[in-house]
């Protein structure tokens, strides 16, 4: 793999890396408070243990965040693989799943926009989450039925479809704000004890979330590798025309992918809301670029690439907070995205092909 990188590419990468280093140094030098801010948080956490323990803790947080990110980005990658659409409205599906769970589970009265009636549902958390995932998956189906299959049928250009997804994202994120208000909401008010395992401190909910995420990802892998439908999905992702010629119903496969993607995104959103103890109306929107970074890093359209990419992005984002201010962790991950496009635009697992 490395042998194929030619000198020019390496030179460019080295130069950008240099610029990045200079930039970060300049940032730290100019903002005198930077060192104070970052070392303050670091010092507070490290006072008892040390930088190494902090590193291990952040590494672990990164794995957790990466797994949750993977749940969301696998769907994004599957959609890209089968339809070549960069779906900018995927982040809202993540928020929607979590918000719907809150809406179903909260004991407080809730409303639907434009209908001046209070509902009081108050389901227990787990049935509410399952119902929310089912409804989100249904929304994926509806979305494909109403919008995307129509656009495919009309042979609307890919760029146009991408801008349609941007419009949809703008509409959905504001709809969620309209529906739930601007404040973050918590899915559960239960107190969540943290346990220490060596240098790692973790709550039970997070451990269960991790288990659920791993199980769901293994499920997706099993589906893709071992079932007829999964093989058909990979075939469509490889070459839609050929798949169609060999008798695969491309449109039904794509619809299935949309249902799966929306359901997985909702699951990811619910687990994320539990992990970070609350979700705001634009959390999914903020996550979207992380997902794109992960998917591009792993290889656009490659479902396992999304997993690898998500883990790397999650770990880098969390570990970077050991040295950089925590409010820069998303910026670090986006920096990686740009660096990857420079050196290996096809991603880690992607096949080298002309992309320009």
């Amino acid at each position, binding site marked *: 793999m490395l042998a194929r990188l030619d000198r020019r590419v390496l030179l460019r990468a080295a130069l950008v890396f240099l610029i990045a280093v200079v930039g970060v140094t300049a940032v730290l030098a100019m903002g005198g408070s930077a060192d104070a801010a970052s070392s303050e948080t670091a010092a507070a956490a490290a006072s008892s243990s040390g930088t190494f323990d902090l590193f291990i803790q952040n590494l672990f947080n990164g794995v957790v965040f990466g797994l949750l990110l993977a749940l969301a980005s696998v769907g994004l990658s599957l959609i890209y693989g089968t339809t070549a659409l960069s779906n900018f409205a995927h982040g809202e599906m993540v928020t929607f799943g979590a918000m719907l769970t809150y809406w179903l589970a909260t004991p407080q009265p809730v409303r639907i926009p434009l209908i001046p009636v209070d509902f009081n549902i108050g389901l227990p958390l787990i049935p509410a989450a399952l119902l929310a995932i089912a409804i989100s998956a249904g929304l994926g189906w509806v979305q494909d039925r109403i919008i995307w299959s129509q656009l495919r049928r009309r042979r609307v250009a890919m760029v146009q479809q991408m801008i349609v997804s941007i419009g949809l994202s*703008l509409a959905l994120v504001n709809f969620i704000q309209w529906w739930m208000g601007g404040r973050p909401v918590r899915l559960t008010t239960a107190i969540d004890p943290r346990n220490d395992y060596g240098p790692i401190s973790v709550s039970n909910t997070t451990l269960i979330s991790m288990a659920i995420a791993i199980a769901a990802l293994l499920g997706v892998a099993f589906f893709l590798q071992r079932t007829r439908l999964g093989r058909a999905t990979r075939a469509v992702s490889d070459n839609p025309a050929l798949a169609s010629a060999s008798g695969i119903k491309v449109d039904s496969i794509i619809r299935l992918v949309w249902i799966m993607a929306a359901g997985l995104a909702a699951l990811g959103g619910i687990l994320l809301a539990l992990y970070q103890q609350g979700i705001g109306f634009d959390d999914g929107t903020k996550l979207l670029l992380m997902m794109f970074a992960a998917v591009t890093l792993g290889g656009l359209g490659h479902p396992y690439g999304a997993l690898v990419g998500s883990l790397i992005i999650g770990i880098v984002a969390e570990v970077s907070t050991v040295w950089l*201010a925590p409010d820069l962790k998303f*910026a670090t991950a986006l920096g990686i995205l740009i660096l990857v*496009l420079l050196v290996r635009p096809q991603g880690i697992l992607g096949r080298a092909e002309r992309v320009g």
Partner: protein
Amino acid sequence: MDILFDVLRTAIAPSTAAFALAAIGLNFHFGLTGLLNMGHAGFMLLGMYGFAISLQQGWPIWLAVIIGLLAAAIFAVLLGWPTLKLRGDYLAIVTIAAAEMVRLLGRSQSLKDLTGASSGIRGKDFKEPFETLSPFPDSIVTIGPFQMHGSRSSSWWLTVVTWVLVGIFALVFWRLANSPWGRVLKGIREDEDAVRSLGKNVYSYKMQALVIGGMIGALGGITWALGNSVQPDSMARPTTFWLWTLLLLGGAATVFGPVLGSILFWSALTLVKSLASAFIPDTVLSTTELEPFSLVLVGVTLMLLVIFRPQGVLGNKKELAF
């Protein structure tokens, strides 16, 4: 009647002109060259940071404007360098990511001394040099039904300056689009390989378009900041999407598309908000819900526009990059 005045006031407001200016920049990217720049707000934000921070250092105003424009130009070169050789949607993802990085850096606590972190730079910290240049009186001036301050903040002075700038850059766009240079850009938009086979350096032409459009975007940002303040979160992703909506509404690749689009977009938004607050009862749609409600409409408008009338009001369907 009040609603009508509100709408008219929005139509001539300096921020409407600032958005028209930024959209002219985007028109260089998308309309002429077919570049999918999804991070135009980042150019605007860099422009206003460059401008406001230079003025805070006590530098003269012409230098501050140049620094704002230079910041955007450097940003364009850094962005375009790796991505202009890649497929269009890669550029979209990278520009959106880079614009978001600028915003995150700007609102980061690490840079509090320079950018004021998430609260930004207050208007009174940088507007004075511009306001002292005003030939208008330093008090409220009423012209016809409109009442604005002569020279402070969103003033008659700023209104005149911004609309003159919009006029100048519409003229520049018209001249450049019809020059040999502009024809090469249109050629790249239609068929990159054909232009390449004619011996043109496509990469360099795309880069020039990206830099010029980015600098006009920065100028839009500067004029916007003069009417409001430097606020990183007001230049987030939605701002870029509004710019796309109003450009596609007016008509991409046309001279007056961005201007008409900006006027229509902001007037319609004001109209919808005032009508909704006047006629829909508070129990159904409260005042805090008005903003997200109108932005839902913006998103839906963008979807419908792209699907059913991608050429907008003034455009020609053959002149589109899709």
